[in-house]
């Protein structure tokens, strides 16, 4: 099982500064995204030129293999695949090519191919990525593809997700209210501002990249983890739920293995493929919890 601890501390601190000081975080993130896109484009072009010069048109993948059931795969190993490169090719495309062409036993979860089903989070060149939205052209070769760290490997790139699902379901992840508007076809009112406030948190695709990147979760198996706390945030901040329910939600996230475990390392925020500001959400819930406790003091 691959258990490298992500080397992200330095980078995380940098992000921490920009994240906490920037006045408009959305703008900041988008600007950052554009900068990254430009950088990627330059990098890609440079790489493509280099490749053309070397007349190289295949990429080398080193893929983690393990199968408890099959003799010869019970000891984890890396297999190398050479895949013909095409412009726009993603890590998922390359894996599918390798599977359909060379080895049909190569196993990984995937479905939508467009970053919404959350099936194909993996550890690519030492970082948690969604394989379907990770461009091959942006990666250094050979490309190392491993299962998500800090989870039990079922087979090859497939990990056991049960623990992640259990944590998600531990925060009462469903809308609760005591009051509905009268009238059969009446919706609850929600301000645009409030919808905007919860919007990013509702984008979670349950890929568990954040959980896998979190050192705290790695050391404390009972820690709810960034995704589950973000789910709690999504409801606690939704003005359609009443104050008494918010109270209950704050109690859940304040438990021993809840928000106070977070040490603000930002690794979850770094890896989230949907750009959810997870650390910010956790911090905000901490503040809410403190305010709430003062109220009753």
């Amino acid at each position, binding site marked *: 099982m691959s258990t490298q601890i992500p080397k992200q501390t330095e980078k995380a601190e940098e992000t921490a500064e920009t994240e906490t000081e920037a006045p408009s975080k959305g703008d900041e993130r988008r600007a950052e995204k554009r900068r990254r896109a430009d950088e990627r484009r330059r990098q890609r072009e440079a790489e493509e030129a280099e490749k053309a010069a070397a007349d190289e048109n295949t990429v080398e993948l080193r893929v983690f293999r393990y199968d408890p059931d*099959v003799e010869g795969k019970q000891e984890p190993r890396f297999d190398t695949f050479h895949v013909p490169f095409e412009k726009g090719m993603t890590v998922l495309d390359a894996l599918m090519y390798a599977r359909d062409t060379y080895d049909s036993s190569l196993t990984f979860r995937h479905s939508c191919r467009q970053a919404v089903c959350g*099936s194909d989070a993996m550890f690519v060149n030492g970082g948690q990525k969604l394989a379907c939205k990770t461009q091959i052209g942006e990666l250094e070769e050979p490309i190392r593809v491993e299962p998500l760290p800090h989870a039990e490997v079922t087979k090859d790139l497939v990990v056991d997700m049960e623990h992640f699902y259990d944590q998600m379901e531990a925060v009462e992840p469903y*809308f609760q209210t005591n009051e509905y508007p009268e009238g059969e076809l009446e*919706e609850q*009112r929600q301000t645009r501002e409030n919808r905007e406030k919860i919007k990013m948190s*509702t984008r979670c695709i349950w890929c568990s990249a954040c959980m896998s990147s979190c050192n705290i979760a790695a050391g404390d198996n009972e820690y709810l983890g960034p995704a589950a706390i973000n789910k709690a945030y999504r409801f606690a901040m939704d003005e359609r739920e009443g104050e008494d329910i918010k109270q209950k939600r704050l109690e859940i996230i304040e438990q021993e293995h809840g928000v106070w475990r977070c040490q603000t390392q930002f690794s979850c925020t770094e890896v989230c493929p949907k750009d959810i500001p997870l650390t910010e959400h956790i911090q905000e819930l901490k503040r809410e919890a403190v305010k709430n406790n003062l109220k009753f003091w």
Partner: protein
Amino acid sequence: MHEHDVVVVGAGGAGLRAAIAAQEEGADVAIVSKLHPVRSHTGAAEGGINAALRDADSWEDHAYDTMKGSDYLGDAPAVEALCKESPEEVIQLEHWGMPFSREEDGRVSQRPFGGLSFPRTTYAGAETGHQMLHTMYEQVVKRGITVYDEWHVMDLVVTDEDDPADRTCHGVVAYDIQRGEVDGFRATGGVILATGGMGQVFDHTTNAVANTGDGVAMAYRAGVPMEDMEFIQFHPTTLPSTGVLISEGVRGEGGILYNEKGERFMFEHGYANNDGELASRDVVSRAELTEVNEGRGIEDEYVHLDMRHLGEERILDRLENILHLAEDFEGADGLTEPMPVKPGQHYAMGGIETNEHGETVIEGLYAAGECACASVHGANRLGGNALPELIVFGKRAGHHAAGKEMGEAEIPTGRTGDWEPAEYEFEVDVGAVGDRGPAAADGGAVAADAEGLLEAEIERARERVEDLLSRKGRNHAEIRSAVQETMTANVNVFREEEGLKQSLEDLREAREAYTEVAVSDPSRTFNTDLIHTMETRNILDIAEALAMGALARREFRGAHWRKERQERDDENWLKHTLVSWNDGEPELWYKPAILEGEAKTYEPKVRSY
């Protein structure tokens, strides 16, 4: 063996809604799905949910638009049920906390969509399906409904009478992907198929890799006819390199299509002089391909969809997800440049024949959502009508299976009433290759009672798995891509006789190749090679029925265009195509479309936008 009152196969929008509904009626319900529910492809739906919520709108207008969009091949009782019940279902989702986009006054927003006479599409940004899927899964968690996730359902367990109308469904057999075991699920009340789309029949599709039409294929082999399979929707705006969907919401908000010369061709070349980009999807897809075929496409492949003029603020507010998709999957920045788009397979209007309660001709077997054909969409589905179909018909099927009294259905199933056999003679062999086993119904077995049937079927499924794992032979992947290639080449937006015949020949060859298929991964743990091999069989059965229907229907209706007769022929073809597996010898037949609604009859009119 597991036992529940109601077993739902599939955990997307229709499956989750069906399970919740069955539980509301007091049933013990279980969901069996090859993916964890939040991985379902409902999550990829972008645009929205049509619902006549406001005073200035009405369900009757929604029904009229839907019937016109369907090119008069929808069945009125189903269309009217959809349009009447969609508003309460949308409000139900809102009450479950779904984060809809909002107006200034805090009410749910609505936007214009193709083919609609009123801006009635409710939405949550350009990620409506994701929000809907997660909201309903939250309800499943809240209610403690049992979910068997990563179980691949292999076949239905049905009795073996000669006439499918006499058969009864008692459950399913499924393969536990994690542990590599076959087991049975007995359903004392009913089995509801909600397995979604079948886009993997084609090679340029917005559908997920998992959308292999499993439910349609297993119902077909058990004796339920497939209805209107030739009507496949090609969405006009998909990214050229991957098939990733760019929502109709972009055009709904004012996005414009341009050809290589910078002409706004929807108007300038007269494809839709009134509605332009917001004409029905079939119209826009044909227009784009005509532009490309006549040399006005970009790189001879695609056209441009431009939304820059909408402004950054509006784009970020309503279409943010589109920016991410265009950037991540095509390297295009929608804020500063037009996005390349071309038509791609998107949706199957046809599927398992059902009535408006979701019942099939086999007792105890239901279907809802994209895998079913009630028929709501007829020859062409309107944008924003798929998501309401999931919740309205998911709920109806769930209620009925749990025993709720819903009255007599108006839509007949099976060969009752005014059905007629097809006169078309196929030149190529179709159907099963080789020996078909002792039972007449594939998935059927000969046994004294339900328990015995399940036991026999579990045993048969185990043997099939063992056989696939132990034999030597060909890999399924080459067979699957041969099917996808011929379907995309010959059964696409523009169809002609020679190509359609060619596809049937290619499919026959693929079927023969499939008799030699084998799984090379011997593992009992998470064997995706085995699952994909079984799915490829489903793809083959569906592709063949689809091509048969397309070859026989010599007219141009909705999404089905024929070179030989480029106009709608109401005199001969105002009828549904049905293909019955007929125990291995597929048979084509027809039944009339039902245009008589509750208060009025929908008279076919010239369909212009």
